């Protein structure tokens, strides 16, 4: 059986044109997707968490959920973390659970594009959809990101190569890559501008000053870029972790957002973060429409309070403030600093994941779940904030994240 127009549940591009062939409930072929997408679909059944575990002993799902709820309700300061690689319904239930428990809830943006959210809160953000980019953009800037290797189909579907309404091919678009090294993306660009590591803020600030007629110290190639930015008909800047995770973090993003805002005095210019996990944008949106805040939210006083730095998972763990943790669709042991993840090994940690991960290995309770977007349907938000429906292409006996979380909620309420 061929499933058409399946949404790829891997990166923030959320390509919605994948064709997946299944036979006897097994995926046998994947068309249109990039190599990462193919690997995600074809290997989704490998390395699975085979059974619910408590203290590494096989137990029934009900027992594992019961033990998880016991740990979470007895905790004085539980933490819920992850969310970006699952669908919005599950995220909604996780937030509800956090509210019932009086927990801190944070999503993975706090270690990637959290500074983007802080920058947006400071400066605002001129946005547009990727459809508008494809149809209209004649100047495309990638700053501190490498889509050729991280968002493989971004060039082909949304920016450089697609046939749009007003821009028909790469010939009608100018592509500029600004980065600290000559990446695979830089080789596709019409212009590559190399900057010294850690000077993004200084460069963007000088570009803004030059726009105001003052930044004489700006190097000539960047003066030239600002002139081209002013002259273009529809400009777009994509930025990645090169801005958000280098020294200065939210200040870098703040400056970039302000530059784009300033450019709208001259022409139409937008800016979009290159979000990593496929539904990290959804995690921010879901948390924002339910709690009022996109990440690092605490419910210990019964109402939501947000303060990145105080309630962000890395910081809460580094200060050893939480005494139990529920990790949903994420692997913090693999990507948090040692001082943070070591605390996860010291406290009772519960993991909900389809696969075995480093975090599931140190967890007290592991709960296997269905893979969202392959074994369970749901909604995910693309990097530009467009919601798309994830499809279920194979059946499984395992429950979805949302179903497990609603069982937990029932037990907490009982």
């Amino acid at each position: 059986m061929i499933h058409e127009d399946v949404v790829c549940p891997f990166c923030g591009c959320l390509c919605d044109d994948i064709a997946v062939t299944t036979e006897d409930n097994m995926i046998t072929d994947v068309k249109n997707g990039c190599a990462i997408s193919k690997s995600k679909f074809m290997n989704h059944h490998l390395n699975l968490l085979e059974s619910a575990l408590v203290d590494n002993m096989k137990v029934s799902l009900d027992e594992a959920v019961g033990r998880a709820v016991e740990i979470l309700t007895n905790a004085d300061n539980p933490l819920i973390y992850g969310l970006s690689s699952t669908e919005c319904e599950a995220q909604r239930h996780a937030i509800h659970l956090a509210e019932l428990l009086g927990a801190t809830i944070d999503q993975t943006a706090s270690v990637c594009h959290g500074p983007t959210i802080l920058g947006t809160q400071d400066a605002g953000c001129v946005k547009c959809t990727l459809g508008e980019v494809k149809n209209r953009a004649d100047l495309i800037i990638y700053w501190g990101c490498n889509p050729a290797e991280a968002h493989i189909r971004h060039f082909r579907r949304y920016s450089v190569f697609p046939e749009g309404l007003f821009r028909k091919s790469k010939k009608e678009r100018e592509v500029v890559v600004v980065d600290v090294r000559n990446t695979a993306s830089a080789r596709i660009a019409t212009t590559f501008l190399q900057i010294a590591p850690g000077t993004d803020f200084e460069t963007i600030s000088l570009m803004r000053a030059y726009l105001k007629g003052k930044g004489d110290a700006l190097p000539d190639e960047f003066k030239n870029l600002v002139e081209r930015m002013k002259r273009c008909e529809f400009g777009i800047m994509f930025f990645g972790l090169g801005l958000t995770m280098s020294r200065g973090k939210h200040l870098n993003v703040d400056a970039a957002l302000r530059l784009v805002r300033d450019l709208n005095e001259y022409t139409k210019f937008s800016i979009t973060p290159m979000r990593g996990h496929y539904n990290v944008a959804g995690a921010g949106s879901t948390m924002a429409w339910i709690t009022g805040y996109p990440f690092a939210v605490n419910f210990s006083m019964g109402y939501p309070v947000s303060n990145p730095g105080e309630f962000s998972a890395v910081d809460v763990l580094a200060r050893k403030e939480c005494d139990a943790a529920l990790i949903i669709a994420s692997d913090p042991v693999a990507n948090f600093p040692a001082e943070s993840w070591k605390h996860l090994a010291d406290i009772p940690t519960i993991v909900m994941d389809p696969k075995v991960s480093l975090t599931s290995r140190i967890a007290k309770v592991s709960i296997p779940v269905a893979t969202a977007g392959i074994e369970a349907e749901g909604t995910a938000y693309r990097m530009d904030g467009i919601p798309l429906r994830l499809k279920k292409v194979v059946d499984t006996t395992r429950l979805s994240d949302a179903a497990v979380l609603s069982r937990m909620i029932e037990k907490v309420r009982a």
Partner: protein
Amino acid sequence: MLLNPLVKTAIPVTAPCITPDWFSGKSVEEVGNLPVYYGNKEKRLRDVFDIKDDGKDIITLGSVPTVKYIGKGMTAGSIVIKGDAGMHLGAEMKGGCITVEGNVSDWAGAEMKGGEIVVAQNAGHCLGGAYRGSKSGMNKGLIVVKGNAGNEVGGLMKKGIIVVEGNLGDAAGCSMKGGTLICYGHPGNRLGALMQRGSIVLYESPALLPTFTYDAEYNPTWLRVFLRELQKTPHRIPITQNHIEGTYRRYNGDISELGKGEIFVFHE
């Protein structure tokens, strides 16, 4: 009132009730009945502190590195902390004085509107700063830190004075809109980023952002008057006669923003 912490875990205690305003006119029994949060559990102050009446109006606390919001919004009176203090110390305070004999965590004096905070050792990030999404940080009042301070000291500061005798972290005075920040140690990276107005006074040479431009070297009259007034405070800020009479190099910025901020670097 003497308060000694009973719990020694890392679970944060949220206690905005520890202010002279809340304590005034209350017996030990009544003070012990004030609500606090230990993690997500609502408790009474007596559950987390041993409370004794020493007959003084001053609130004296032991080392409380995990207790948040001490002195929040206080309008008068004194708090002395005989050790470290937790986050949000004196946040939004309007008057009175808080003395910390150890270190203080992040957001001390955040969005304060008056009063004084004196820290004997180091301060954390966002000292006198603004909460995320807020329009302005500290707005009147005085903060003196004898040691170093973290990142984004005085972020979005509108009025008031911050003196850091040690080093500053990154982006001190970022998006500053007014007020004065004085630093005697190393001023850190990206000082005054996105600054609109306000003054930063330095006694060590900074690596300034390229969006600050040199104006002149002179002895600013306002600074002379200002330092003389600061000298009169009991906080022993290391102001010398040279600092008052010497010349300063004035830089103006951040020119990517309004550009009316000024950085004075002491010359001789």
